């Protein structure tokens, strides 16, 4: 029993965090928005060169063959930065699924290429316009389709950096790939887990922005951060983050088991981390006052991302039902915290 990261893991996470926060500041985000661009090539190249797109790929595909506990901090950093590029869904979900179902696919040899993924729980496909290939579903079949073979219709999201598309395409025998349910189940769990990890980052960013503002802004002759009403909003949000983080970490450690216990923990993580992000985002807006409701202050970027991720990859009702499944079908109690089904 050891609930800590190794020095090496902590260093890798720190590298990712530094890279993303340095290259993806709110000023960068606003420049991109002004240019109407989907991707910042300089930043994406740095992400690729650091190996962040290779974390979950097997060595056979040129990957680092690391685990979800290693990718979760990267997803958290992506949330903290409000990263627009599809690092999390492509490298954390789609690429490892493709490596499992089509290990010889060409796209896996290009670490800078991105892969978009459709799932029955999501009505639209994120970042389909910048993807080289798309993993799509037709009834129960899995298809891997080149970007050139699909037609995309943009579905505008409240999150200015979220690029959602309706995908129209025709399944053929050539695009069809054999994929078992277990592969898709793992993909869903990874997507939910990494959405949760992003939620931690989004929550902390919203709190940090509010703390900075509350130290500077004065009313009644004092910084507003000295008033307890303001302090308590942010302290409560921080409590939510502190008790979501170990759940996300434990879910990352358990995800490979793919049993009711692991699924419930992933769902628990997604629920509470995105609730924390919502609470932190709304508290941050409240602390910023009228400024918080303006386009000019950056908090809304993080609040909107949290909103989108709350309903993507299984909404709260879906994930609550999975926790209920574990609670009511298996023994509960203090000796069951790390329970799992026999392998």
């Amino acid at each position, binding site marked *: *029993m*050891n*609930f*800590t*990261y190794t020095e090496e*893991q902590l260093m890798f996470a720190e590298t990712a965090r530094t890279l993303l926060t340095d290259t993806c500041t709110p000023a960068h985000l606003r420049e991109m928005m002004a240019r109407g661009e989907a991707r910042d090539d300089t930043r994406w190249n740095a992400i690729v060169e650091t190996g962040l797109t290779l974390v979950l790929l097997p060595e056979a595909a040129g990957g680092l063959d690391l685990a979800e*506990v290693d990718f979760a901090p990267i997803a958290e950093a992506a949330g903290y930065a409000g990263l627009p590029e599809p690092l999390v869904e492509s490298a954390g979900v789609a690429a490892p699924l493709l490596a499992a179902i089509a290990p010889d696919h060409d796209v896996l040899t290009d670490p800078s290429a991105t892969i978009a993924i459709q799932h029955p729980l999501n009505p639209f496909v994120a970042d389909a316009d910048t993807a080289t290939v798309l993993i799509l579903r037709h009834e129960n079949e899995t298809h891997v389709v080149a970007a050139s073979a699909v037609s995309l219709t943009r579905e505008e999201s409240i999150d200015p950096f979220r690029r959602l598309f309706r995908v129209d395409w025709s399944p053929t025998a050539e695009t069809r790939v054999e994929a078992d349910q277990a592969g898709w189940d793992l993909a869903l769990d990874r997507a939910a887990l990494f959405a949760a990890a992003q939620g931690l980052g989004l929550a902390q960013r919203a*709190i940090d922005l509010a*703390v900075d503002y*509350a*130290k500077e802004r004065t009313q009644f002759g*004092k*910084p507003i*951060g*000295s008033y*307890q009403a*303001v*302090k*308590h909003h*942010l*302290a*409560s949000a*921080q*409590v939510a983050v*502190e*008790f*979501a*983080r*170990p*759940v996300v*970490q*434990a879910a*990352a*450690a*358990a995800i490979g088991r793919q049993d009711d216990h692991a699924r419930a*923990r992933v769902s*628990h993580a997604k*629920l*509470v981390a995105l609730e924390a992000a919502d609470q932190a985002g709304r508290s941050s807006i409240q602390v910023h006052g009228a400024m918080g409701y303006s386009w000019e202050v950056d908090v809304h970027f993080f609040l909107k991302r949290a909103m989108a991720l709350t309903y993507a990859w299984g909404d709260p009702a879906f994930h*609550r039902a999975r*926790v*209920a499944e574990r*609670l*009511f079908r298996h*023994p*509960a*109690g*203090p*000796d*069951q*915290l*790390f329970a799992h089904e026999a392998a």
Partner: protein
Amino acid sequence: MDLAYTPEQDAFRAEVRAWLEAHVPATPLEHFDATREGFEAHRDWERTLKSGDWGMVTWPREYGGRGLDLIQWLIFEEEYYRAGAPGRVNQNGIFLLGPTLIEFGTPEQKGRFLPAMASGEEIWAQAWSEPQAGSDLAGVRATAVREGDEYVLNGHKIWSSRAVFADWAFGLFREPGTERHKGLSLIFFPLDAPGVTVNAIQKINGHAGFAEIFLEDVRVPAFNRLGDEGQGWHICMATAGFERGLMLRSPARYQVAAAKLAALYKQHENSVDPAIRNDVVRAFMNAEAYALSIYSTASKLMAGAKIGPEASTNKIFWSELDIHLHQTALAILGPRAELLPTAPDAGDVGDWLDDYIFALAGPIYAGSNEIQRNIIAERMLGLPR
């Protein structure tokens, strides 16, 4: 990161489970705050625990402990709550003062006080608050005047848990003329010393769970001061850290309650508001989140880290989850929720109501949740005072 128990840890769990199965009283003891008999029955239980070498498993052997690590402590606590073993009447001693003594005490003080604490021979009460010093603890007015090798204590302490029946108490005393955080010392005094008057105060449930203590020229040896003279505030904050941190509320307590809540819900599923199901799931998630957080903290402490202001987040989380969990149980029981277990038609109401009333104290004691939120805002987030 490896979230699996080792074979040694599994074997330790089995050992604890077997011992508890053989020794936990078949019928629950009367509450230790209810009567002297209930209190003494719990002292006897502490002796029984010590006879199995389970007094305070994390303490060093030389001071009456077993020298185990924090993961073993968590496993012990899990089995303890799972077995429905009696509440720890000496929790002020073993969980609060004990760890502080281990950190700040002299070898002589440790030898004098710790083994008797671990065996239940001496049961401890805390004497933090005074009528004018609650959340603002630095406002204490009780005084300690040094006379040779003794202190002469005077003052008025209040809300002292366990003080009605306990043997010893610890509290902050001020050198006359000093102010606020300066000039305070943490001093122990026997509750039967000449000059000590203890008046019971009934809790919301009618139990004499706390007391006010009047000290009039109470003489104690200077040996009873923990740490240096005037260092009391610093030591007191360390004690509060233990209280808010790892030791005060075992996650196992809530995990057992959440499992019972799920069983209660299943029994009444067809007759209750379906929306209650979400609250049952929530209570389970909260209990698990708290447990995972404590495992994470225990691992970090074992790797050499210290508990900082984040301990304040624990106290807020467990106190709020406790209330929510028990409110959910009462919602399932519906119109029978108000019945005391002695009511002729109480049926399966059990301890839910009693435990709910107990949970209401959570946001108040060990530093109110408002104070904890101030600590989080100022020391974790860096907001101005």
